[in-house]
């Protein structure tokens, strides 16, 4: 009986040991499918200064793997939800080839396209001509996914993000999608712009199934809640930024408890525009509904990721934590308030310090999951060179009312 018990224990132990074997991670070809956040969109456009320091780029650097990117010459391309869409002007001022370096890499591994929804990542492919004067999203798509293929000949393949990722035969894929949908709904205060969770689930599963065909390890991220970003300022925060008292703002603009103000409103308050621009105030109820819907989509991402065996990083939790606690880096105390140091001028897309922080968090997750030892980026060297950290408000004296 003792022998039987010992044998049973050995069997169970060996079975458990087998089940707990650490999977291996191959970072040879690291490909990113995503939208503006993974692309390195910051301030009001996509441009090389931020792209080079986007969190996937930092990850690649720390992992020691090649990561060719579709770098865009300043002042950049694209637009950020919540701000006016500028006409398509490519090349823009101070731009020559738009993409850099020139000649460009034949392929890029950061496939993230600012403005892409989940369905776009699966369905939207480059379409000639390269510059579509009436369609900014298509132009950005062309410049990222269709270049240089579109100038090499009409027989060259034009891939969607998902197709492109598969063609690159990746060993590691990071998927960061859904934030554009959430952000567009939030900035327009229209929760119903958010995709239906069921449809989102189906499309996300389809994308991961496509990527699984490469046998790459997949990392997914949850969707940050736009309400946690600096795009949305509380009345108190707005008062602090504009040098007005909260009471003044409340009475002058008819604000209610919990209302959130966009950068548009913050720009108008100092010049005492009345009323505030349409859509620049989001009610607490609308904000709560947005947050609920983001959580619903994240539940779907979690489920699909688990089913696909993907490693899930909770980006949503990080943004929430930054909103609650801010971030101390060296002598810098950074907050998620507008011009608080964590977010770029758009308020909705972070600066390079947060990108480095995201990279470190995902690398830590990889180190834990795969028993790797990727070094982390040093935030104390990143922050001093982060434009977002340097964009700080003047100490505005409170104006006598």
């Amino acid at each position, binding site marked *: 009986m003792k022998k039987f018990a010992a044998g049973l224990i050995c069997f169970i132990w060996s079975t458990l040991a087998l089940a707990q074997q650490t999977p291996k991670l191959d970072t040879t*070809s690291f490909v990113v499918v995503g939208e503006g956040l993974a692309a390195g969109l910051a301030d009001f456009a996509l441009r090389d200064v931020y792209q080079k320091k986007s969190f996937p780029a930092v990850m690649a650097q720390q992992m*020691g*793997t*090649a990561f060719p990117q579709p770098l865009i010459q300043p002042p950049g391309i694209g637009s950020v939800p919540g701000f006016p869409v500028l006409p398509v002007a490519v090349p823009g001022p101070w731009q020559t080839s738009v993409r850099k370096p020139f*000649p460009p890499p034949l392929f890029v591994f950061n496939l993230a396209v600012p403005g892409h929804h989940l369905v776009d990542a699966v369905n939207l492919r480059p379409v000639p001509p390269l510059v579509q004067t009436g369609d900014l999203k298509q132009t950005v798509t062309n410049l990222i996914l269709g270049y240089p293929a579109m100038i090499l000949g009409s027989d*060259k393949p034009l891939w969607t993000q998902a197709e492109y990722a598969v063609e*690159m035969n990746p060993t590691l894929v990071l998927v960061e999608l859904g934030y554009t949908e959430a952000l567009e709904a939030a900035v327009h205060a229209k929760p119903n712009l958010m995709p239906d969770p069921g449809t989102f689930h189906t499309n996300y599963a389809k994308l991961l199934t496509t990527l699984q065909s490469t*046998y790459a*390890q997949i990392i997914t991220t949850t969707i940050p809640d736009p309400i946690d970003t600096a795009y949305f300022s509380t009345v108190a925060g707005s008062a602090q930024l504009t040098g007005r008292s909260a009471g003044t703002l409340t009475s002058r603009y008819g604000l209610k408890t919990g209302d959130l103000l966009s950068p548009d409103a913050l720009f108008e308050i100092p010049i005492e525009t009345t009323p505030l621009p349409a859509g620049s105030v989001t009610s607490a109820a609308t904000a709560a509904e947005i947050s609920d819907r983001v959580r619903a989509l994240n539940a779907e991402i979690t489920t699909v990721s688990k089913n696909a065996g993907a490693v899930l990083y909770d980006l949503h939790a990080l943004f929430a934590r930054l909103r609650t606690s801010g971030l101390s880096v060296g002598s810098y105390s950074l907050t998620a308030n507008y011009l608080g140091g964590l977010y770029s001028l758009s308020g909705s897309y972070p600066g390079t310090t947060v990108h480095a922080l995201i990279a470190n968090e995902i690398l830590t997750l990889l180190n834990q999951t795969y028993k790797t030892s990727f070094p982390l980026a040093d935030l104390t060297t990143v922050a001093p060179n982060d434009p977002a950290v340097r964009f700080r408000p003047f100490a505005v004296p409170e104006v006598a009312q």
Partner: protein
Amino acid sequence: MSRPVLQFALLMMVFFGSVRLADSSAFSITELGARSAGMATAFTSIADDGSALFYNPAGIAFQKGTQFQFDTLVVVGLFRFNPSSTPPGTVVPSNGYSGSVKPHFIPVASMFFTRRINPKWTFGFGSFAPFGLSDNFTNFHDGDPAITKFPGRFAGTRGRLEEVWFQPTIAYRLNPNSSLAVGVAWVHTHLLLEQSFLNPRTDGLDFGNETANQIFPGVDPTLAARSIARLLPEGRSRVAGTANSPGFNAGYLYKHAASKTNVGLMWRSAVVNHLNGLASFGFTSPFPLQQFVDKDLLPKAFPTQKTTGSFVTPATYAVGVSNSAFWHSLISVDFRLQDYQRFRSIPLNFSETQATNPDVRTPAEKRLFFDFRNSYQIATGFERALNPKTVVRAGYMFDRSPVVDKSVGPVFPDANRNTFSVGASRTHGDMEFTLFYQAVKFMDRTTNVDANANQFTNGLYHNFAHLMGIGLRLHKGGDSSTP
């Protein structure tokens, strides 16, 4: 045409139709006579049938009349490999990868003929295959996802070697107790090696390094090369060639009648095979770079072409002692040494190179290194007559593998072997029918060679082989039994 001649012609046809060799492992085949195989091949000092032409040609000097002998061996090799590491995501079959050829039954045939010319001289002719190999780890179709394919395919997927000796021999009876024999053989060899290439971790990097600045300008070329190597197709190469070379064989046999003891010595020369053949290449399609490069880039870089090469099969030195003084039985012991250290490498010389055609990337020479060590076999056999017509046999052999750890892989999944055999013969008039069975247990072998890490050939090799054979001996003239 007389009946014996017709029979001989038919049997020759059968023989040539079935010389499709394939034992396993370090390519020696020792079970070329059914009677000797029943005694685990401890036959150097016995050599009392046609297979003496292989085991000890001096033995034919003691054989009277005319003898035809045909032996056929069937090998069922069961080769399994469980890699200790694989590319991430690789789906490894639960019982490892199989290296067995299909169909599983591999026939190996031999033919022997001896004729006493006069009491001193005996002539013999043997056709046999002392070296052969056939294994196949091609568990995939070229278009399958890379991650489902046998991970060691870049070290080889299929090996096939057939070395057939056509050996006329003359034996001389020195005195009533001893004899000497010499044979000169025409040795015909066929070699085929098949493997995948453009391994993203090794040779694929060469292409990546060459094109890094064009495909990924501004990216660290070393890192870029690794990614570019993954955008290439997988290549498959096949090199096949034949060689015709001379071989030599000599033997000595001494019989001490009083003690009923025999002593035999045998030497078979090494053979230098100068191969002439063809190298051909193929590539998976489509692949990511395909639509961005000249569609003929790879076929031009690796054209089908004439190839030469060379390799050496080892010499064999054998000594055996047998005694039939006890228990009405015959007991024998053999020790054989094979100088496999001659098998260091196979240089393959390609006829088309970059020097003559800038599009070509086949090198002037690609050398496959094996660096074998010498091997030895210790065999012991037992034979007992149950009655005047029926004889039974048994034996055991230990075979030390010549394959060093670094060369253990899909072409040579070898290990030391323990062989157990049984056999029996039944005489009917001038004919003798013989059967044998051998169980060959390869010792489990686990390799862990750093240099093989990127070829994924490290791991556990777990092999077993069943050998079964039959022999037919026809005896005309002289006594019906051996002297």
